[in-house]
């Protein structure tokens, strides 16, 4: 399976096709976003089978509730990743899941996943990993907790025992660092 044979559409084309509920839209949606979404899901949920189930649930929810997405309110990926993150958090916090899984230590978890899985690197993104690693440790931990653990900023403040304002500022600074590279 070579990557360049995957279906890829512009975001505009994809949104239109999804609205028309075309088969090709489902395929393109999966090919374009499954890895990014799975990156978030599998960092929140360490159990592989459960993470795969949640990825499936995520696509079903995206597909079925697509009418509630509006391009006015932002990018398609932002909307989708929030669905993926919310479904993942719901799963992790459900009673069943808590009973069958030991909670790993948060920080270790992120690096544990990255070591365990084949993280995909894109040539155009080479060096980004380094950039993220160069973030100040207090920025990096907040970004990871919020983005890859689904913590709210209030929970982060409690977890790290720092004021809410500080959490928000550090998060903003971390994202500004990312923007310097991407935008």
């Amino acid at each position: 399976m070579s990557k360049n044979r995957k279906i890829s559409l512009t975001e505009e084309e994809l949104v239109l096709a999804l609205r028309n509920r075309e088969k090709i839209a489902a395929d393109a949606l999966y090919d374009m976003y499954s890895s990014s979404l799975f990156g978030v899901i599998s960092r929140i949920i360490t159990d592989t089978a459960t993470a795969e189930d949640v990825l499936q649930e995520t696509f079903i929810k995206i597909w079925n509730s697509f009418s509630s997405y509006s391009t006015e309110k932002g990018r398609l990926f932002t909307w989708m990743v929030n669905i993926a993150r919310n479904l993942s958090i719901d799963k992790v916090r459900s009673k069943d899941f808590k009973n069958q899984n030991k909670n790993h230590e948060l920080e270790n978890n992120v690096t544990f996943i990255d070591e365990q899985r084949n993280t995909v690197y894109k040539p155009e993104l080479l060096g980004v990993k380094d950039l993220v690693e160069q973030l100040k440790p207090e920025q990096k931990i907040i970004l990871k907790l919020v983005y890859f653990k689904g913590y709210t900023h209030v929970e982060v403040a409690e977890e790290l025992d720092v004021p809410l304002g500080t959490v928000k500022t550090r998060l903003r600074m971390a994202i500004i660092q990312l923007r310097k590279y991407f935008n």
Partner: protein
Amino acid sequence: MKVEDVKAYIETGILELYVLGDLSPAEKLQVEEMAEKYPSIKTELAEIERALEAYALENEVEPPTELRNRVLNSLVTTFADDGKFPGREFLENDDDDEADEETPLRDNIVSISTARENNFYKYAFAASMAALIASIAALFSLNSRLNESQQQIASLQTRNQVFANRVNLLDNEVTVFHDPAIKLIKLQGTPKSPASKMMVAWNPVKKKVMIDMRAMNLAKNDQAHQYQLWAIVDGKPVDLGVFDAKADTTDGMHEMKPVANAAAFAVTLEPRGGSVAPTMSEMVVIASI
């Protein structure tokens, strides 16, 4: 809001939380309103979104290959319209062999089940139409037969009435002739009309006079004239009523005016309605007792 205030709003970090979906519905709405008003906020939001999307892309984890079909199949069951399936084009783009085999199979199943459903309604409709037509035909047939039967009943009732009347009539006639006092008088034709003749039944006890319409042989009278029956009582003619001579008659005995003692009976042709005195020249039949 001044430019500095907008800048301060951006710097609170609320826009980052908005993109991360970490705001209450009210706060979310506020950010959306602000973005609508201030292009700088909208731009800021777009940059945050792009940065986080790239961040996710940089951290992506490819799911297992077999998951693709599982996920897509779970979406396929919710496709609104299979008419929107792209055909060849979609298959050529598909890099997964399993999907290549599975998609046409799925299309086949859909088309067969659709055809089956169509056939069912087609046959059901045809059957309904046939039943409807048969019912209408049966209804018309029954209705015409019912009308026919009703006509037959009406006709039978009429005939029954006719027979009943006839039986009554004959019964009366028989009663008349069973009385021993009855006298049957045969009136013979006069020289004026020698072929004419008729029968008069007279019961002197009951003073009853009847003429036999069937045994009558008189020339048919016209519209201006009628035959008049007379009885000769004490040498004088007494009017016993008028009658018509018809070519064919179903009438039997016709009762005339009563008379107790008559010496003779005679019939004359008189103007319609009868005369006070008989016109002797127009006498057609006569009989003495």
